[in-house]
């Protein structure tokens, strides 16, 4: 049995012992109508919250521009910098924030080790920071953050270089080893609190998500459900082979991240203690991988989604007295390390996962369409419903004023 298969088995056993969750019943009983309705709602929400490719393309252009300027400024050879998206932008799980505020787009800036002094990671980190001066970068733990006033995103720029080159230098310590899988894609980044190199594997992590999400768990045919088939056909253009919610893993990630953000807005969890995205992504993907290893088959995307959500909290490992969410691409790295020194973080995770399940049960239990729409809006901050773009011929183009008129300031300070 694979290690995640074992974890899923254990998670199922833990779930069986729990009496509070009603979510599981929807997997075993016949709730076709509820499942179809939820699939339609969640698909619409997914479309609403995911970040348009256009924005990601803009970010890629910005990164390219910055790297070109860096090469010029540092007088490095062409091709000495390679930019690689990381985090949710590379795993295609980036979401809009509920209040439309700015979001981070992460990228690693891989610099050819031959042009830098790899014995001194901080010198390398500062060198990149200095070269980015014109964008007024803000130093973070492992990256530099750049803000553009006219963009909806921040760019997190992580300086890195090839791990093997760093390790070749005698006595250069690198925190963590690359994981067994995807080890050839591992990089060295600068961990500024410790002022040391640290192994990172953004490309490996992204590949892991992609590889797992491509594994077929869903054998679902739209003709099984008339409602869903009709809905799928009503959204054009939809490629013939595309099935509603077929990319279930990524959709589960996006929905849970959104639910977490909304739980903060609703006052259920606190902003400074909310579960970090990397933990949600890792637990869900491990669960997906374990289910795939077990050759599980789902006949409805919502059944798979419910199982992922329901099992996800139980995928957390306990090693001795410590909680563990291991990074599958960097050996020894524990994403939940802070939980072991701050129990509030684990408590908040538990509060949130209980809320996710309770909200999904509530949504499925509501039969009235209007009430259900209100509940969905409360839980996800949107109904997913979108109107068409504004028509251009609304009559407003005529008689447009030829100068800007402003209402005078009606009040002086008094």
């Amino acid at each position, binding site marked *: 049995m694979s290690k995640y298969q074992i974890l899923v088995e254990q998670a199922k056993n833990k779930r069986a012992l729990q009496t509070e969750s009603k979510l599981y019943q929807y997997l075993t009983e016949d709730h076709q109508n509820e499942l179809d309705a939820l699939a339609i709602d969640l698909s619409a929400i997914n479309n*609403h919250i995911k970040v348009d490719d256009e924005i990601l393309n803009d970010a890629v252009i910005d990164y390219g521009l910055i790297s070109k300027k860096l090469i010029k400024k540092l007088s490095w050879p062409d091709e000495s910098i390679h930019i690689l998206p990381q985090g949710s932008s590379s795993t295609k799980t980036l979401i809009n924030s*509920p*209040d*439309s505020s700015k979001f981070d787009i992460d990228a690693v800036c891989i610099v050819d080790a031959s042009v830098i002094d790899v014995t001194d990671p901080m010198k390398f980190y500062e060198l990149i920071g200095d070269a980015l001066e014109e964008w007024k970068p803000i130093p973070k733990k492992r990256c530099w953050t750049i803000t553009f006033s006219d963009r909806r995103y921040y760019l997190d720029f992580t300086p890195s270089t090839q791990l093997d080159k760093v390790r070749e230098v005698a006595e250069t310590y690198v925190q963590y080893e690359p994981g067994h899988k995807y080890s050839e894609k591992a990089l060295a980044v600068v961990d500024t609190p410790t002022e040391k190199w640290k192994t990172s594997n953004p490309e490996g992590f992204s590949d892991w998500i992609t590889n797992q999400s491509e594994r077929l768990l869903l054998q679902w045919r739209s003709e099984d459900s008339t409602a869903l088939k009709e809905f799928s056909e009503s959204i054009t253009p939809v490629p013939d082979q595309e099935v509603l919610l077929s990319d279930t893993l990524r959709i589960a990630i996006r929905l849970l991240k959104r639910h977490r953000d909304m739980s*903060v*807005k*609703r*006052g*259920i*969890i*606190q*902003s*400074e203690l909310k579960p970090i995205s990397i933990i949600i992504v890792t637990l869900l993907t491990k669960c997906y991988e374990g289910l795939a290893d077990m050759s599980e088959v789902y006949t409805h995307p919502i059944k798979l989604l419910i199982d992922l959500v329901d099992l996800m909290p139980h995928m957390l490992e306990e090693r001795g007295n410590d909680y563990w969410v291991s990074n599958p691409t960097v050996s020894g790295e524990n994403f939940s390390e802070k939980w072991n020194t701050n129990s*509030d973080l684990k*408590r908040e995770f538990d*509060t949130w996962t209980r*809320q996710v399940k309770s909200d999904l049960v509530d949504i499925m239990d509501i039969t009235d*369409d*209007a009430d259900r*729409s*209100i509940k969905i*809006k*409360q839980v996800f*901050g*949107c*109904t997913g*419903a*979108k*109107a*068409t*773009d*504004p*028509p251009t*011929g*609304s*009559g*407003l183009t005529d*008689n*447009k*004023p030829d100068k800007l*008129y*402003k*209402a*005078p300031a009606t009040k002086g300070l008094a």
Partner: protein
Amino acid sequence: MLLDFDAYLAKHKCIRKELPSSNGTRRFELKLEKMIPERKFDFAILEIPSDFANSEVAKIRLPKNCALNIPHVESDGLLCIGGDPGPSSGASLIPRLYLLLDSFYYKFYYPWLNGDLDADFEKEAMNYWSLHCNNILTSLQPIKKIYTVDNRTGSPVIYKSTFFDNDKIVIAGKDSKLRERYIASLGKGDTVRNVLVAEVPISYPFTPINYPKHEDDIYRLLKSRKEFDNNRDFKKLKVNTHRKNHRIVIFKAPGCSFGYLLPGGPPVTKTKNRSTQSTSNNKLIPLKVERLDLSWITGRDQLPEHIPRQNTHVLVIGVGALGSPVVEQLAKSGVGKISIVDYDNFNAANMSRHSLGADSIGISKVKALSTLVNIRSPSCSVIPYNQSIRSWLDKYSLDDIDVIIDLTGEPEVRLLIDNQRRYFMKPFLISWMEPYVTAAHACLLPIGSFWLEGADRLESLQAVEWPDNVYQREPSCSSQFQSYTSSAALYSVGLTTEAALDLIDGNIDKPIVRHWIRGKDFLDEFHPELKHRDWATVESGQKGMMIEREL
């Protein structure tokens, strides 16, 4: 022009039929697209008032039930999106209408249909909360409003606080001193009862879609906080059969708060037509919350330097025409404690320039002023000393004073304090006005710098050459002292208060003097021979100037 305007209305593709109207306002139905059920509203009416051309603005009205379901809709259905710049913008009727319709469709209607306005409730959270509370408000409601005294903290707390039965208001706060001062200010002899309060910090303001609707929603939010695990007070709060005290919960987001009265509590009695009705509250009632914490009342959360001033103790010597308003201003600026020393009683001749009024004639100035400021600014405790500074110094020490301010104009006082400062290292402000308030001066002396450099320096710092026939000190044996107006003195109040705050905030590291000097025409009004000293000459055409020099 009006014909053009009528033709514009008739031809406009977005303006449908004109509707009947009874008050002279012309009303037109606006064109709407087919809307999905979640975002649908039944109509949008363009309202053009009868005096649209000269004084009024056109508006757009939606059904009343859109309020709290769609952002920017007021309780009467009016859309609050701006648009019509009004007659004073210089725009004629057609461009004004164009801009209104443009705002309606492109800043409101299509963004609403696309979900782009969904986050807008959060931006004006308190307005919508107020609307929500007003919708539910009834005359039998036991509590109508909560005032919070404490700053928002990181952890939830439960405590007993105070409730005024007649006014139906709660003063919520754990800080008993500050709370008691607000009770004295707001209570006005009302019956005081206890109320159980839970304060819970939340990261973001609530919006209409996630307002807690039921008692269980409240407990779910409280239960998610570790502080309430097995908390005895929380268990008390949850007792639904509570008859003795009301129970309220306040959710505090950064910048705004949301209150709830839980069901239960003592019944409310109401007498009507000689019969008394007694009703127990059985609903969850939303309550408006108004902040009285220092960060809000002194600077609307935008002046963080006011907070440390709460721990500052200032000594003000002399509470006359300059001192009394300066004490008021310091209290409003967040200073936590002010000791005021003056042996004088308030009399009729002071009335035109002093903070006190007719109700204080014959009373000690310090006693009347401390009562006034303590009631008006409860975040400051003003302590009166009806005596001379010399006798005050015999009894008390400058040791626990942070900044000393002399507003007497008396050389003896300056001398006395300056000598004391050789033993007690305290910053010192000396401020005074010249006759007619032709000039005012503030000497800022940080620790280690002294007023006396051989002789008293006041005369050398004055801006105007005074002839002998102008009294520069109020004579004790004459009533001929030249008067000045309260408004003229207010310039020196501002100068002095700002100087005091600079010393309090620790912004001054070397001795300086600041001057406010009126222009020559102001001097000429009072005395033909008056002239500025060379350094203080105000350029012709200027009404006054403010300068700062090293001392």
